[in-house]
């Protein structure tokens, strides 16, 4: 789960990390008022859960509250990478001397949290990492011991931070560690952490991602979830505990297991088709989940055929078959359905579907070929 910049920075502030004065606004009038309160120059920043908003024109500097209103109007009318801008953050503008990159995230290879820092912060940090990796400092944190101050100091030394800032940097690092730990973050990123002309360290921008698997113990964060920006089908899928991602093809897929779901998509493509979605119904899915998944797939008008690939293990094929039947009853699909059932209770499942006018297949390759063929035929017919 991603947090907005303004949400991330509010959390930063709670753990003692300095942030610019500012507030979030949903209308241009609010933005104007906040700019008036702050006085002086302000930055208007689109709050969307997508990268590259600066290059898309979603971040603008306003010299006064009038200009703030005008720019806010403009930004609140934008779409960035397909996402409508519904809120803007109005921050007092900072005069910047240096931009630092600083983050704590998980290093899956090391099985430990890692601090990442660079004196060359800002939007081009990834190019810095690719071209001059020696400019990126990485220090691992023992997950049982937690971050220790000397490690933060080592980072300050390694990025050539002037001594005068070490103490504040250590405080910010310890704060970011607390943010990361307390929120079950998988990413807590400050970019840029700036040295202002007034010789202060401030977190100018913030990005956080929370571990979905830890949300059960993060009720406050769950409330922060912004569902405005998810596709309705993805929200619906989440409600049923399904893992769904919409794609641009025309063959709907319903599979149990993420790896097999990806493989099914790969095999569709291998045989000349285009998958319309990724859908993993998970292990042990019952009839209701299956029915929900099918409804979600069939909402997509692009879908010209559906492939069911179920390898029963925890999941029982007869349960899946019942879900398919229930959903067919409800949505009366008009597209061809290719079904392949193997494993636990596959016989029972196949028997249940015997009268449902579905195309059956023995292997995944066979199923993929048949669904590609069915989708093409359908295309010609329609």
């Amino acid at each position, binding site marked *: 789960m991603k947090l907005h910049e303004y949400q991330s920075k509010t959390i930063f502030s709670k753990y003692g990390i300095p942030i610019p004065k500012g507030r979030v606004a949903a209308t241009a009038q609010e933005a104007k008022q906040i700019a008036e309160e702050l006085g002086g120059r302000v930055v208007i920043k689109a709050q969307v859960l997508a*990268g590259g908003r600066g290059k898309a024109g979603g971040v603008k500097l306003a010299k006064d509250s009038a200009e703030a209103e005008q720019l806010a109007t403009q930004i609140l009318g934008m779409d960035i990478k397909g996402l409508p801008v519904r809120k803007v953050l109005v921050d007092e503008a900072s005069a910047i001397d240096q931009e630092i990159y600083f983050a704590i995230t998980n290093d899956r290879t090391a099985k430990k949290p890692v601090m990442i820092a660079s004196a060359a912060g800002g939007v081009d940090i990834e190019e810095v990492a690719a071209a001059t990796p020696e400019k990126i400092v990485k220090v691992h944190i023992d997950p049982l011991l937690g971050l220790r101050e000397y490690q933060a100091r080592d980072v300050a030394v390694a990025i050539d931070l002037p001594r005068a800032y070490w103490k504040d940097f250590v405080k910010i690092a310890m704060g970011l560690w607390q943010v990361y730990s307390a929120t079950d973050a998988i990413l807590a990123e400050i970019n840029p952490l700036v040295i202002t002309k007034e010789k202060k360290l401030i977190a100018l921008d913030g990005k956080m991602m929370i571990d979905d698997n830890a949300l059960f113990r993060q009720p406050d964060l769950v409330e922060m979830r912004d569902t405005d920006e998810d596709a309705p089908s993805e929200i619906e899928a989440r409600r049923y505990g399904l893992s769904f991602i919409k794609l641009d093809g025309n063959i709907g897929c319903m599979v149990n297991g993420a*790896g097999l779901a*990806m493989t099914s998509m790969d*095999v569709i493509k291998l045989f000349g088709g285009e998958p319309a979605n990724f859908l993993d119904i998970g292990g042990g899915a019952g009839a209701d989940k299956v029915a929900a998944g099918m409804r979600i797939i069939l909402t997509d008008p692009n879908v010209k055929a559906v492939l069911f690939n179920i390898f029963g293990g925890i999941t029982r094929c007869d349960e899946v078959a019942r879900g398919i039947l229930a959903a067919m009853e409800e949505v009366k699909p008009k597209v061809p359905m290719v079904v392949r059932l193997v494993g636990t209770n596959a016989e029972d499942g196949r028997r249940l579907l015997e009268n449902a006018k579905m195309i059956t297949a023995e292997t995944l390759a066979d199923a993929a070929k048949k669904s590609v063929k069915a989708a093409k035929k359908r295309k010609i017919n329609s």
Partner: protein
Amino acid sequence: MVTLCRHKPCPCEGTYIMSILVDNNTRLIVQGITGNEGLFHTTQMVAYGTNVVGGVTPGKGGEWVLDKLPVFDSVKTARDATDATATIIFVPARFAPDAMFEAADAGIPLIICITEGVAVQDMMRVRNYLDQKKVRLIGPNCPGLLTPGKAKVGIIPGDIAIPGNVGVVSRSGTLTYEVLYAMKNLGMGASTCVGIGGDPVNGTNFTDVLEMFEHDPKTEKVILIGEIGGSEEEKAAEYITSKMTKPVAAFIAGLTAPPGKRMGHAGAIIEGGAGTAADKIKALEAAGVKVAKHPEEIPTLLM
């Protein structure tokens, strides 16, 4: 009792259990044995012939399962009473970290955690703690282990694989079944199938298992089933290049997967360019591994 690695010099320095991981000598307990999933799969494992010796459900100590398996309140009492050599965990995600810590503290040398959805910061603590204690963990979020004809420790359907000389290691669940099934249809058997799980932080990784297969006299060929994300497949390719003498075939899922939600800049920095299916296939092919285009093709590459 479990069979320990007997190679001299021992490549694993005595830290893991060989040939590989489970067989008829395994004495297994089930954590969460009275839950829905635990009970269902215990029944399956017992039916397969796995030597399940008991289970643990706090608050249900003294009960019996399947009329013959004693239930204990803690792993420690279960181990003391049964001499268990391995444990399999079927408890809900929020209790799974405690279940792993408890098993490690009780001195169980091999933990298989099936549970899906364990929080990653918990897993980092678990992994670092278990490493201190030299405990081997398989999973979490994995289908477990299957040594066909000997022991099924997990949820892989027993009837889709036959005994043989091919070691199978996989990050995926049902995709693994797909491959085992294709092998069986071609008459190809497995020595052991190891589902290491797909979570970002887990216990045993590809390289660990390849090393076990390389030293396992019952394994002559190896199938590796990977997927997008992380860099374990690239590491496996390095190991294959430098140490592996047995032939390896592979499949990598996710060639058509859309790029995942990005972890800010940090993800790109930490993961580097790695992680795409194309990169992984390239790395494996460079290591001399034959990479299949679809799962049913894999076994044919080893024939």
